[in-house]
């Protein structure tokens, strides 16, 4: 802290003190009254236990950055038709969503990595997963001189992130991309610095196709990266890749689209090089067997057109929330999201949920009380 050089010379007790006293007390009073006026809690607006029909209620949620574009669109649209319900969602990463939900500092969470059994066990109540949309994680890159879509496969991506492939013109990358002039630049690996469901999906896929990756890095929302730079959120990764020549990162499709960044196609289980899109992501979900708790992984799916790094993203809610009004509000919101809300998905680069999944979820929503 900078040392304060305040100096007060001798003060004459006479008028100086009197005027000062008056002047400064007045300004103190002004400051205090401003403070009080501003801090007037507007009781009519938000109150934690206000029933839904008595004024706006705010529902706080936190979690994944992966679906943040569509969630923020949904909450905005939903508020237009339901001005009393304000859903305040903060995208702090899937890990954050799970943690804050378990600590009950937020009402709902969002994650693209489903909660593990251990996490569900240690939560203070039963938590249900509700898939909301489908999305795909794409490898974005910033390679000088390359504007077209590069082709990758799981093995190459795994080796890049393990630090084994270090240059863009490496033989393995060149083999997949004949005819593309790859510079001899170093690869700047970008990963997430925060707990991320996008990381989970990425690692889930790479662990399936690379035993080395599975052993050295593993699958989780936060892993021990052997190489690269960490950025916060999907936003941070796309921002950093965009600014750093030679960088590669993994982000949800919409971030690549919105920022007009080139992204690669990835070879799927059937051997095809597939680019992430509505169709390819939907194809990945087509063959999935949806369990009752909705926790399923669809990376590396079968199917000729399936995009290999696709995933559901989930909204997490307590099965028996203490705040009944908010619980009902969220159930109503989810019902809207699963029906009307789905139409916003394609324009934002997400795939709407398959009908059977929606039907199953509507049933499951009845469990919340």
């Amino acid at each position, binding site marked *: 802290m900078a040392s*304060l050089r305040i100096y*007060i010379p001798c003060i004459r007790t006479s008028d100086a003190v009197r005027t*000062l006293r008056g002047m400064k007390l007045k300004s103190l009073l002004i400051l205090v009254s401003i403070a009080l006026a*501003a801090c007037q809690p507007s009781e009519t607006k938000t109150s934690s236990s206000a029933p839904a029909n008595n004024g706006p209620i705010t529902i*706080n949620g936190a979690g994944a950055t992966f679906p943040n574009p569509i969630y923020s669109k949904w*909450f905005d649209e939903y508020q237009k038709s339901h001005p009393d319900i*304000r859903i*305040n969602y903060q995208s702090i990463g899937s890990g954050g969503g799970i943690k804050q939900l378990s600590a009950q*500092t937020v009402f709902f969470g969002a994650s693209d990595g489903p909660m593990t059994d251990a996490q569900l066990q240690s939560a203070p109540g039963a938590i249900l997963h509700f898939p909301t949309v489908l999305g795909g994680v794409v490898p974005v890159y910033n390679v000088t001189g390359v504007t077209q879509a590069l082709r990758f496969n799981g093995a190459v991506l795994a080796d890049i992130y393990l630090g084994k492939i270090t240059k863009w013109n490496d033989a393995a990358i060149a083999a997949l991309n004949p005819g593309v002039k790859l510079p001899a630049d170093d690869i700047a690996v970008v990963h997430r610095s925060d707990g991320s469901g996008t990381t989970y999906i990425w690692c889930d896929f790479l662990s399936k196709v690379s035993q080395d990756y599975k052993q050295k890095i593993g699958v989780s929302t936060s892993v021990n990266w052997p190489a690269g730079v960490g950025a916060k959120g999907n936003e941070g990764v796309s*921002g950093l890749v965009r600014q750093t020549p030679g960088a590669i990162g993994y982000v949800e499709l919409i971030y690549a689209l919105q920022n007009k960044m080139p992204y690669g196609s990835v070879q799927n289980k059937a051997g095809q090089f597939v680019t992430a899109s509505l169709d390819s992501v939907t194809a990945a979900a087509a063959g999935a067997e949806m369990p009752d708790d909705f926790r399923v992984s669809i990376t590396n799916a079968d199917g000729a057109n399936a995009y290999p790094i696709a995933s559901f993203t989930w909204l997490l809610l307590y099965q028996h929330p203490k705040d009944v009004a908010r619980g009902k509000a969220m159930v109503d919101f989810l019902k809207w999201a699963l029906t009307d809300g789905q139409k916003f998905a394609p324009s934002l680069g997400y795939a709407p949920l398959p009908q059977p999944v929606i039907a199953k979820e509507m049933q499951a929503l009845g469990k919340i009380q």
Partner: protein
Amino acid sequence: MTANLRRRKVYSGLFEALCALAVIVALIPLAMILFYVVKEGFGALNVDFFTHMPKPVGESGGGMANAIAGTFILICIAAAFAVPVGCLCGIHLSEYPGTKFSSIVRFSADVLNGVPSIVVGIFAYGILVLPVKRFSAIAGGVALGLLMIPIVVRTTEELLRLVPGGLREGALALGATRGRAVFSVIVPAALPGILTGILVALARVAGETAPLLFTAFNNRFWSTSLTQPIASLTVQVFTYAISPYDDWHRQAWAGAFLLVMMILALSILARLAVRRLERMNRS
């Protein structure tokens, strides 16, 4: 002899030049920062910025009205907490300077001064967020207040000490109790300086981000409630800065511009208070 003197004179001149260079070198980043903040920030300011809430991700437009209000509310809460605590503590330290208790308290205030703001954030999270299981404006405001306290304590104590003994003795001789003497005579005499100290502390704390990350959280909506998460200029600038959207970057600069202006205003106010007093004494 003369050669030696000449050499020493040359060295002297050289080092003096280096010192002048140091000043220029330090002023370069200041100039750059102010330049960019004004250039990018001022250009991005528009009416929307002051009146609208943030738009959904990826859509352009929108503003930071809720964040501006949020910062204001947070510093009010911080002041409401820190000013009474800090001033009364400072008063005690100046009235009873020699006791062991006072030495320990003074030591604690110094310790608190050196605590990084993120650690204060952890503390505020532990005592104000976890027990009630919610993020709130109060938690954020108190975290900021904790950072203000050492500055207020120290300024209050030093200024009260500087008030001439004659004032206190006069008041006591007239039969005032200790409390009366202090609150009616000594504190008003030192009030401009104390106010300055408070303004300086406010300026410092208005720019804090780290402690708000896990106390006030953030809020997309307009909210003045003390028990709900609240947006703030600093956290909003941080969120926008690390994003990939150009529109958000522009708004981040605008937010930064507003922050710098606000802090400048507070420091100028502080300086004016001192200048006013000096002028008063000269007359």
